[in-house]
């Protein structure tokens, strides 16, 4: 480890790192404790992760067939984070904030696949009415605060949602106000000022929020250890007096267990948690990324830890599911994804006469 310097002139191949430091961290985690789950929960999680995976595969296909445009960032490989965290939260009650890699967070939050797919096709039936696109998925109904396309800018917004939760409880005396917000972002964001500013404010005011880092090691082409002075992001929580945890982000049940701990702290008014999930994206940064920098050995290491396969093994080992049940779920999901595509293809485009609609508020929209 000591010989792995962060000297920027070192080329990856000269470091002889095999699968690399990022991968090595998986074997040194403080805890690998997995959540206890029942059959229904297990199948729900499997369904959510399968939907995430197959939805994204379909996106790649549709992108290459010229049905969707712009920058499309797929989530393959990171499903355990979305399903592990959001699956442990309360839909339409807690709040979720994402980045440009937001399709699967939207799906986990409950936004129907039809709405997400038709947004990607730029249709009026999309969750952002075709105005947002891949990087700007929003759903007030499902408490999705949005996909934010610039690095770090979603974090303050998420902090704002957590502030509202506290404000309603303490300033307005609404005792039932106990919503928790989860802000998702990547390792690259953790070198940005908004990350630090928001950690400070959230801990200062003990806001009910989870800062969920999806550390997939690569900020487009910038390897994490070349961009940061201390690659162990969860340790940065300590500087703010905040709870920090690192977790195997390829193990959905471990993510779920850590999320449950963090959510409990947040709901009890004990403040935020910085949860670093070690994960990996199986595809390039976006579908426009030639993905030339990542080593085969590294990709191999992580693909062997495919979170869907890991969950399947867990469910079978714990006798919570049979292979037949899981295959049947996959078939259902394939149908759902096919249906989403058909729906999106046939859906109407936004009306030209509504080009300038939604700039201004149309009516008082109070909660």
């Amino acid at each position, binding site marked *: 480890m000591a010989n792995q310097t962060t000297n920027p002139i070192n080329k990856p191949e000269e470091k002889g790192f095999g699968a690399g430091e990022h991968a090595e961290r998986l074997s040194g985690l403080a805890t690998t404790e997995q959540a206890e789950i029942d059959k229904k929960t297990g199948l729900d999680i499997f369904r959510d992760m399968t939907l995430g995976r197959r939805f994204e595969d379909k996106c790649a296909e549709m992108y290459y067939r010229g049905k969707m445009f712009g920058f499309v960032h797929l989530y393959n490989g990171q499903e355990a984070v979305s399903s592990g965290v959001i699956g442990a939260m309360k839909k339409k009650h807690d709040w979720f904030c994402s980045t440009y890699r937001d399709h699967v967070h939207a799906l986990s939050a409950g936004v129907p696949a039809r709405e997400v797919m038709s947004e990607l096709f730029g249709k009026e039936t999309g969750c952002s009415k075709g105005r947002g696109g891949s990087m700007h998925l929003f759903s007030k109904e499902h408490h999705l605060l949005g996909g934010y396309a610039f690095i770090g800018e979603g974090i303050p*917004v998420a*902090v*704002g949602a957590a502030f509202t939760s506290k404000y*309603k409880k303490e300033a307005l005396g609404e005792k039932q106000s106990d919503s928790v917000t989860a802000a998702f972002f990547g390792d690259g964001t953790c070198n940005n000022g908004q990350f630090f500013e928001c950690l400070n404010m959230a801990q200062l005011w003990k806001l009910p929020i989870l800062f969920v880092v999806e550390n997939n090691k690569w900020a487009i082409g910038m390897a994490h250890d070349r961009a940061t002075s201390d690659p162990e992001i969860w340790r940065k929580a300590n500087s703010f007096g905040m709870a920090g945890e690192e977790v195997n982000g390829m193990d959905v049940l471990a993510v779920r267990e850590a999320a449950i701990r963090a959510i409990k702290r947040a709901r009890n008014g004990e403040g935020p948690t910085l949860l670093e999930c070690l994960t990996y994206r199986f595809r390039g940064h976006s579908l426009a990324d030639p993905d030339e920098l990542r080593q085969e050995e590294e990709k191999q290491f992580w693909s062997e830890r495919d979170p869907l396969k890991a969950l399947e093994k867990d469910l079978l080992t714990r006798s919570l599911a049979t292979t037949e049940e899981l295959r049947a779920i996959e078939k259902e999901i394939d149908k759902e994804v096919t249906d989403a595509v058909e729906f999106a293809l046939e859906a109407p485009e936004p009306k030209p006469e509504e080009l300038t609609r*939604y700039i201004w*508020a149309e009516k008082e929209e109070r909660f």
Partner: protein
Amino acid sequence: MAGTLLFNALREAIDEEMARDSLVCVMGEDVGHYGGSYKVTKDLCEKYGELRVLDTPIAENSFTGMAVGAAMTGLRPIVEGMNMGFLLLAFNQISNNMGMLRYTSGGNYTIPTVVRGPGGVGRQLGAEHSQRLEAYFHAVPGIKIVACSTPTNAKGLMKAAIRDDNPVLFFEHVLLYNLTEEIPSGEYVCALDQADLVKEGKDVTILTYSRMRHHCLKAVEMLESEDIDVELIDLISLKPFDMDTIKRSIAKTNRVIIVEECMKTGGIGAELIALITEECFDDLDAPPVRLSSQDIPTPYNGKLENLTIIQPHQIVESVQKIVSKGV
């Protein structure tokens, strides 16, 4: 008989709106215990508590973004820029999220926020504290921009801005906080989108806003003895412009001078003159004139500073010139 100081008029507006609606809150640097750098939120923290009047760390982009998130989830935050210039550090949140998010989200969310604070050129505050961000933010879609200029309109406009469901950038002027006047007793709200016809006249229209309103008034006074009858309009709303009032006036006077404190290049007047050219061309008997600040960082030296911004005598000269041209 004591009038009301402009900063107190703003304070009254915020106080009344906070009492009226418990979702209205204030956040920013030193707004709480300190009462705001210009005392616009004095004692409100004591009255409404530390959550409703929240002292934030010095992290402009983050607390502005926090206001966006709070607004999306039901609150109606007022963000104070201790100096509006500091909000350059919040440009991303103001542009991407306050301004654009409602549209980008296809109408999922509204962002009822007010961003307010002192702008303009003060007295030898140096370049960074003497900015006129109204021009910088003018191109951002989805935000309203308002500039108050008297205690009366300050209060009424602030109340309207707080009640508006859109993000409003509310410009106060650092040199107008101590302006005093009798303000109407009882509750009143001013329209955010209406220009103020300060003085009717027939010879030339002057369009101005914020502190320059008072420079223009001095000029109007000086011109009265010369029998030149100026129509003076305070724009109030810098985005969108009240084009109805502007067009009506130009149709009457056929001459227009824009007096602004922002820089000439890319300024408020630049946009305004383009619109006037597009919409009032046939009514004009003379080329429209812009009196703007120099395109330079505001110098510290007092004499140079005075040369940077427009002075009343320059307005007088400009009016004399445009009127003497005849039809």
